[in-house]
């Protein structure tokens, strides 16, 4: 029995390690914030972490297929701007438009990567300027409005239910479903070995376009979440999400070379980064030292993770 247990744990090394780390962080956090496990805190924290979790999931999706998305922050801001500008004429329509914008932007990135044969890092870097510009056209200065009832329900709970938490759970279910489809399997196959996938009859270009477009769904939802959380749109707010989403994905053990990684671990990775930065706010540490600690913890965590993976391939 213990053998089987360690076997399962070893198979999920990333998830187990991150889970353990998360427990430690939560324990320390609870020490500072005794109300951490109350519904109110959970609602607020999940509202706060939702954009990063979804952004990290989008980044992981692209990375699993062997790509990377440096335009993520710009597309997120675009979705946020579209939603905030249109929200007053009907939240549902605004949400659909915002999602459509993000998916279209993702698909465009995918087409460039698949057909122009350019490295994703270059394509998406260039695309980040394009989408950044489009966002400024949509919303030249911070503004727009989201119905205050929705903002309130989202941030402070709706009949005691943490809406952002539910949203994350639903998105994970969506990923689980997609992961087992032909597209989901092809995504891993293309990331793991593109030539092999092509040789075995997978339309690798279509899969790549599909991957970037599908990541657009997550990015769009992240943008909508951020718009509801802040009650407005702001073209400049998205940028930090690009690098943070990569950090969360790498921390979760998603390989830069594609094909390796678990979405569960990505969610934990994003949570860890969010919780850690939050925790440092409670410590009363000088702001510059906070940045140092944040960086050091990330480096140590990634080193640990690399150590563990290296052993597995010995």
């Amino acid at each position, binding site marked *: 029995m213990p053998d089987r247990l*360690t076997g399962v*744990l*070893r198979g999920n*090394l990333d998830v187990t*390690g991150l889970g*353990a*780390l998360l427990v*430690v*962080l939560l*324990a*320390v956090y609870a020490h*500072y*914030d005794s*109300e951490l496990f109350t519904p109110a805190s959970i609602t*607020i924290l999940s509202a*706060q972490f939702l954009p*990063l979790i979804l952004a990290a999931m989008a980044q992981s999706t692209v990375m699993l297929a062997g790509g990377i998305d440096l335009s993520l922050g710009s597309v997120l801001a675009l979705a946020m701007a579209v939603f905030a500008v249109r929200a007053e004429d009907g939240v549902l329509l605004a949400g659909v438009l915002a999602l459509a914008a993000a998916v279209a932007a993702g698909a465009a990135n995918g087409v460039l990567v698949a057909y122009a044969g350019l490295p994703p890092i270059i394509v998406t870097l260039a695309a980040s300027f394009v989408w950044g510009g489009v*966002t*400024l056209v949509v*919303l*030249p*200065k*911070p*503004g727009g409005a989201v119905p205050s009832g929705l*903002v309130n329900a989202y*941030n*402070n709970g709706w009949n005691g239910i943490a809406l952002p938490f539910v949203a994350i759970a639903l998105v994970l279910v969506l990923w689980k479903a997609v992961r087992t489809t032909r597209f989901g399997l092809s995504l891993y196959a293309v990331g793991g070995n593109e030539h092999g996938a092509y040789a075995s009859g997978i339309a690798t270009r279509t899969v790549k376009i599909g991957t970037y477009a599908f990541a657009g769904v997550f990015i769009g939802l992240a943008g909508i979440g*951020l718009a509801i*959380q*802040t*009650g*407005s749109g*702001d*073209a*400049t*707010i998205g*940028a*930090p999400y690009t690098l943070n989403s990569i950090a969360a994905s790498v921390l979760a053990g998603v390989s830069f070379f594609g094909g390796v990684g678990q979405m569960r671990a990505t969610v934990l990775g994003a949570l860890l980064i*969010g919780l*850690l*930065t*939050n*925790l440092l*706010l*409670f*410590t*009363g*540490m*000088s*702001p*510059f030292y906070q*940045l140092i*600690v944040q960086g050091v*913890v990330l480096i*140590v965590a990634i080193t*640990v993770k690399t*150590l*563990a993976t290296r*052993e597995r391939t*010995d």
Partner: protein
Amino acid sequence: MIGRFSRAVVATAALGALTAATACGVNSDDKGSSGDAGKSKALKVGWSTIYLTPSWMQQTDKMMKADVDKLKSDGKIGSYQVFNANGDTSQQIAQIRAMIQQKYDVILVDAGSSTALNPALEQAVTAGITVVSFDSLVTSEKVVRVGTDQKEWGRMTGQWLGEKLGGKGKIIAFNGPAGVAVSEERWQGAEEALKKFPGIKIAANVHSEYNLAPAAQAFASAYSASPDIDGVFSQGGALSAAALQTLVKQKKKLVPITGENYNGFLKMWNDNKAKGFSSLSTAQPNYLGVIALRAAVAKAGGATVPSSIMVPLPKITDDNLGEYVKADQPDDSYPIQELPQAEIDKLIGK
């Protein structure tokens, strides 16, 4: 195999311990500093700023810390904590939530977005916290706002440029980053003022960060496209310095350039005044932070404070330039006369 697995576990545990230890170590420091709070109700004050590293912020930070020390010795402030969001507005929201959670009495905020912080700040107000926004303001009317009129900034300097050029000529508009409220508002004001001079044509509208290096590049390319300009509307000190530096380096005609109290620009202005260079500059005074602090302390103590405190913009002209420029200080500083306490009291309605 099990050996390797447990090594990973040990490493993870070590990392966890590191996090915990760092956090706890600092915790004891924090308790130490809040011990001297005094017996009367000493306030727990926090300042969340979108940036802390630019020199303007550093100067503001220093000025505020000095004033906090005064208020601490009066027993009015118990503890003071600065939070740096490092350009990340989402992080700033997290900071405000953390301050609500930790039951701060006063939250000061220099906002990264004029709209995105509103829900968090309004929640703080509902929780009974005194919230004062200064410098880069939020749009919420539930918080006290201490600032300057950014539109007036653009209007005042734009009007001067129009008059200086006698109502006709070609100019380059040199603005801050696109999509940022301060930059957009200053330009709005300038456009209004310049509309009154139909003879003035805008040859190019250039955007740049408020930093010398990117500004110099942005201006150089715009200037090479229209070298026959008669003036520059610039809305930031580093931008003005970049523009003037380009003209001086290329030995071109020193056309009027509007500006700000960025010392590097003031020094260059002073050096080239004899050669006919002229400007009207203004300033985003660092003492906005001090006024915000004083207003918050007064309000938390039960006094009535106006909900919008607009601080007049200083005017730096060819005549009073000498009072501002500081030859012995670095370029990257913002010389300003301190505001007497009586003036501050008047502004916050004491």
